[in-house]
């Protein structure tokens, strides 16, 4: 294992301290999400406000980040979430993660608070805190263009106007659309008076066995390109999923009051608005769209949550809302969910014009666009919506019955989980709240997967029928583990075994890639155990910050209201079945009956030691 570096940037004191990342951390947590989560567990005190200077924002890249490894574009941004008050962690593509490594650092911790607007410049092994007065107030595109004009060919991760105004659902952005979208990491950066972290470096990433790496890449390229799914993702991107979810009667519509929406949002309708497909660093899947409205996207998430969930069915409107979120630095998932929630509350008379200042409701593009701007500037009703799910404090207790969120995080994706039960368990137990990218056992949608294949992937007892509660804990447990591992390597989970296909990268591939890059051997079982260790570390962090087993639950509507339309008509999550899945999941995790990590395990995790 070769030396990798991290730094703590103390914004209050204007000081930078560099460290070699302890070998024990690298072996125990790899990097990226894993080391970020371990750092949060060690550095964040119990009971602090997420906007306190005592909170930290950690940017971290995995050991495969920035190499030839496929889709090795990712980094994680982590901190105590301003949106949820628990673990905040968000994985992001683009080109920034690799560039941070080229600049000499794998992890960067921002702590304290700068006295004036600043940015952090990381260049060829040097870190400097610089004045950002010329950049404050710019949107996410403008600031990146200005930084490049002033500094040359740099990559930056920035906060937009929303983050400057500490909007709880503000994201970090790099490039036009790549987002560390979830959990309000943009608000956290803004609260520290930081506009951007900029990286540039000429040194590349050390690869221990370059010849082996080249051979391996040939093999892996053929393996991935041989999958039916790769060309689909490369030509259609994720919007293809809209039609799939809609065919299943599982598209969140008008705040999940309905579950089927218009065919006008099918992927083929998007094609006329797409200029070309593009990719992140080192990726041949190229699943992203450059649209003809001067932006990038939309992803499936935007199609569903800024479309069906807001009662909109005209693609240009949805692309424009997507671009607005990108520019302002708003998380598409939370923004679409929170607007849908407010519209239903207004329809039901739970909130009224006195609070909103105007009539609000579904199916109004101009209104939605205007509210996104108001949220980002905290103007009028936008100031309340900017609180995300915490707006319930203003809306009143009844409003919580209609909030589609878990642990205060609005649900990330547009899939209504009442039909496929494992999806429900996944978002209920995910460490950052309602999010499909933590543990979604997507291949549950392959209804015809043979039982033996299911068991080979998920383990003994896994079941084929997606609508039963038996055997679903295995599916979530498997996915949770492998996604934690891939997030910690620096690879994109779109090519991860079990996310899109049973024929994507597995622990054996991770092991080979790690050996080629770092020269260290990691057995497959060890890599799976790293995933488990990360999940337990995040659980310890969350329990330290007030989470209990009762928070592993679902929105009331998913339990109480049967779905109304299509294939999934009549389906809901039964509480008894849900409790059974949850109990089985705790058992697989070796947590106690109250969902707590056992003391012996806590000791093991803490034995990895504090800062050197």
């Amino acid at each position, binding site marked *: 294992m070769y030396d990798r570096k991290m730094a703590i940037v103390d914004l209050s004191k204007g000081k930078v301290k560099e460290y070699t990342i302890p070998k024990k951390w690298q072996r125990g947590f790899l990097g990226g999400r894993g080391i970020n989560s371990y750092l949060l567990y060690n550095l964040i005190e119990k009971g602090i406000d997420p906007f306190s200077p005592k909170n930290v924002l950690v940017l971290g890249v995995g050991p495969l980040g920035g190499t030839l490894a496929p889709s090795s574009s990712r980094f994680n941004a982590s901190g105590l979430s301003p949106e949820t008050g628990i673990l905040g962690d968000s994985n992001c593509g683009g080109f920034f993660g690799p560039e941070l490594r080229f600049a000499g650092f794998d992890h960067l911790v921002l702590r304290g608070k700068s006295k004036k607007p600043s940015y952090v410049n990381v260049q060829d092994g040097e870190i400097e805190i610089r004045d950002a007065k010329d950049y404050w107030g710019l949107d996410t595109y403008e600031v990146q263009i200005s930084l490049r004009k002033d500094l040359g060919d740099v990559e930056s991760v920035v906060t937009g106007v929303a983050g400057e105004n500490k909007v709880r659902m503000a994201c970090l952005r790099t490039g036009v659309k790549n987002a560390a979208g979830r959990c309000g990491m943009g608000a956290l950066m803004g609260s520290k008076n930081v506009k951007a972290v900029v990286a540039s470096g000429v040194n590349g990433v050390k690869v221990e066995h370059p010849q082996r790496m080249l051979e391996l890449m040939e093999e892996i390229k053929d393996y991935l390109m041989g999958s*039916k799914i790769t060309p689909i993702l490369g030509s*259609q991107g994720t919007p293809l*999923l809209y039609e799939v979810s809609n065919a299943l009667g599982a598209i969140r519509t008008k705040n999940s009051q309905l579950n089927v929406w218009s065919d006008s949002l099918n992927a083929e309708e998007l094609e006329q608005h797409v200029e070309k497909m593009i990719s992140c660093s080192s990726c041949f899947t190229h699943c992203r769209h450059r649209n003809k409205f001067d932006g990038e996207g939309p992803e499936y998430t935007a199609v569903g949550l800024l479309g069906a969930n807001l009662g909109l069915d005209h693609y240009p409107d949805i692309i424009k809302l997507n671009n607005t979120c990108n520019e302002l630095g708003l998380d598409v998932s939370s923004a679409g969910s929170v607007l849908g929630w407010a519209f239903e509350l207004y329809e039901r008379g739970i909130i009224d014009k006195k609070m909103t200042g105007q009539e609000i409701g579904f199916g109004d593009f101009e209104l939605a666009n205007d509210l996104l701007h108001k949220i980002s500037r905290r103007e009028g009703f936008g100031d309340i919506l900017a609180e995300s799910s915490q707006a319930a404090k203003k809306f009143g207790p009844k409003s919580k019955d209609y909030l589609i969120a878990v642990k205060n995080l609005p649900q990330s994706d547009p899939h209504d989980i009442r039909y496929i039960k494992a999806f429900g368990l996944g978002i209920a137990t995910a460490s950052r709240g309602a999010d499909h990218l933590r543990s979604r056992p997507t291949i549950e949608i392959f209804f*015809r997967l043979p039982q033996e294949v299911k068991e080979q992937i998920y383990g003994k007892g896994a079941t084929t029928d997606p609508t039963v509660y038996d055997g679903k804990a295995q599916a979530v447990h498997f996915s949770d583990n492998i996604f934690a591992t891939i997030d910690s390597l620096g690879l994109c989970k*779109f090519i991860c075994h079990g996310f*899109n296909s049973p024929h994507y990268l597995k622990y054996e591939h991770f092991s080979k890639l790690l050996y080629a890059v770092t020269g260290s051997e990691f057995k497959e079982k060890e890599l799976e155990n790293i995933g488990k260790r990360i999940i337990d570390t995040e659980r310890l962090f969350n329990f330290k910050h007030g989470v209990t087993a009762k928070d592993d639950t679902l929105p009331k509507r998913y339990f109480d209201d049967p779905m109304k339309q299509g*294939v999934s008509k009549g389906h809901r999550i039964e509480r008894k079945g849900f409790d059974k899945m949850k109990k089985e999941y705790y058992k697989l995790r070796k947590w106690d009956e109250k969902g707590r990590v056992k003391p012996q395990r806590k000791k093991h995790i803490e034995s990895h030691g504090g800062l050197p």
Partner: protein
Amino acid sequence: MEITLKLLKPLKDAIGKDLLTLEVEEGTVTSLLQHVSKEYPELGKELLDDKGGLDYRVNVILNDKPLNELDVEVNDGDQVTLFIPVSGG
């Protein structure tokens, strides 16, 4: 009897159509898919695996019911929907 076959992307790209109205003999979903794969070889390539069975990645919904077994009878007026699921963010 008349059966409607609905294809989602990317399957519909194979034949440039998303709806097919088929005149078929009585039979099961399996026999229907064998028939359609013969009639439309380009679609057949997408639907069938190396052994000539329906690729497990292709999902089948008969009217409003997702199927995990294909030896189910089809009846006059039925709609069969075929799609390949993917995931994403």
